[in-house]
């Protein structure tokens, strides 16, 4: 568990260090453009190094957690990411409606609730966003450009 907790600050440290290296060696930014990001990045890196050291030095206890959070389920994550696939394949108006229909039916809700929610979604995306607010939500599938 201790090592698991250290992975997150280690990833932040690696990301920040990689970006700073990219800026210094590849893009070769001027001192004026690079000074502030360098200072901010060094602070992030130092704090992460300090955190990793503190986690590894702590004797067997878990770090404080923000709240009692449930464990992640693959099904939950799959439903979450499924929306991206629906939006990409069918566009924002029809993709969102179909996603709601499939997701609610897939979670054993009644046909009436699932279809009703999908229709309301069509009304909100097409009626409110596209027609009333004038926001050009992609109606065509995204893969069609």
């Amino acid at each position, binding site marked *: 568990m201790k090592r698991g907790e250290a992975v997150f600050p280690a990833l932040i440290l690696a990301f920040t260090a990689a970006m700073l290296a990219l800026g210094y060696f590849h893009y070769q930014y001027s001192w004026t453009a690079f000074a502030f990001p360098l200072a901010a990045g060094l602070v992030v890196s130092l704090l992460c190094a300090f955190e990793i050291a503190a986690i590894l030095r702590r004797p067997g206890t878990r770090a*404080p957690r923000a709240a009692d959070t449930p464990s992640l389920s693959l099904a939950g994550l799959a439903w979450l990411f499924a929306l*991206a696939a629906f939006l990409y394949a069918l566009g*924002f108006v029809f993709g969102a409606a179909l996603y709601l229909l499939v997701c609610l039916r897939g979670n054993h809700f009644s046909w009436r609730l699932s279809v009703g929610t999908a229709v309301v979604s069509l009304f909100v995306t097409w009626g409110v966003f596209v027609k009333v607010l004038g926001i050009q*939500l992609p109606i065509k599938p995204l893969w069609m450009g």
Partner: protein
Amino acid sequence: MLDAFLSAAAQLFNPLVLGAMLLGLPLGVVIGLLPGLSGITAFAFLIPFTFGMPPLVGLAFLLAAYAAVSQGGSMTAIILGVPGEVPNAATVIDGYQMTKAGRAGEAVGAALMASALGGLFGCVLLVILLPIIQPIVLSFASPENFILALAGIAFIAVLGSGAPNRGLIAGALGIFLSLFGYSPTEGVPRFWMGIDYMLDGFRLVPLAMGLFAMPEILALMTTGRSIAQPEGLEPISLRQVVKGGLAVFKYPGLFFRSCTIGSVIGMMPGVGGATAPFVAYAAAKQTAGDPDTFGSGRIEGVIAPEASSNAKEGGALVPTLALGIPGSASMALLLGAFIILGLQPGPEFLVKHPDLAFAAAMILAFGNVASSLLMFLLSKLLIHITRVPGRALAPILLVLVMIGSYSAENNPIDVLFVFVFGGLGVAMDRLGYNRPALLLGFVLGEMIERYYQVSVSAYGASFLMRPISIVIIAAALLCLLWPNRTRVLRYWRYR
């Protein structure tokens, strides 16, 4: 100033502005009723709807919704023992005990009245302070603003959670992420990795939605439970509500003290949010004749946190409007909304748009009173939303988040970044990293860099040695170290 005040009042009667307020109120109430969804989430959900709106209409919509969020949160805190957002947690202590004792209506009445009047107090203070604070604010130059912005992030990072180092990591990472894209001084694109989207850096809306909405949605989707489990829900009678409302007038000293605590804490950049109601509750307990009975259903234990919670919003608007430095994490997002609406809060804002500053205070005051009335009317009906099963609510919220984030810039890559920042938000939530600190760092990052560049150019490396700068640094250090004074003293003696 009087002209600006009258002009602001006149603008509020514009049908579009009134309509926006009336539309924002019920939306804010609904978001407030969903535990975990706070004022910051309300802004994240609602900001995309303001695109294309005139500035005052957009502000009316957002501030009215924001004022209503807190009312919804206190309802669930009292009736279900589930705080709508962190500040409402202080209300749970005595409010939920009152519900269990069959006095839910009384607690709801006291909370609604204290919130409405507390909100009014904060807004009146804001109107009084705005003209007074202007000369003080104008004496602040770039070095002072640079230090204030850094101190604000440090405050929220260190005091906002039980793990100060993780809070500081979040704040510093927020600043670092804000530096991607074109440099404000040289126009050089930084860290863009050959991706055109990154030329403008990371965007605020996907970041806010990913950090705050996605973890809540994932939790709902994973557990499948409704957000609240309303066992033993007590019916609310009108007589009880009126009795509770009138109880606020029995404790004027408690009410004004709590409001003052809320407003003062609200004005301190970064501290506002969750701290004020707990400090007000502690003060109410300390000054009561029988402090041991607090926690068993004392109505003062509901009045104090609710009054301070709403009074702090007016206070938090003071540094947001006058200095361009948010008084709380929600105000950080409001600052982003101001920028999206084409307004730049700060000393110049008070000179150029005093009418808008007064209008913001009036909208907040109206929102506080109107949302109390609305909550009173809808109290029985709206509670049912918290019983919607998580697996039904989560996909609906997810679709709203995705459409909202796309609408911000009509860019599908924003949707992708909601997922990316969603992963970051989930990890931070689970490992106890301070998400508001990251957001605050992101919102203030570019400004901090600009102030830093100007300070170095104008005053050289010794810009930190200006008298006002030294005073601010000393005050910030004192505020940061004071809660940990025993630990610091013990360490010092040990050495």
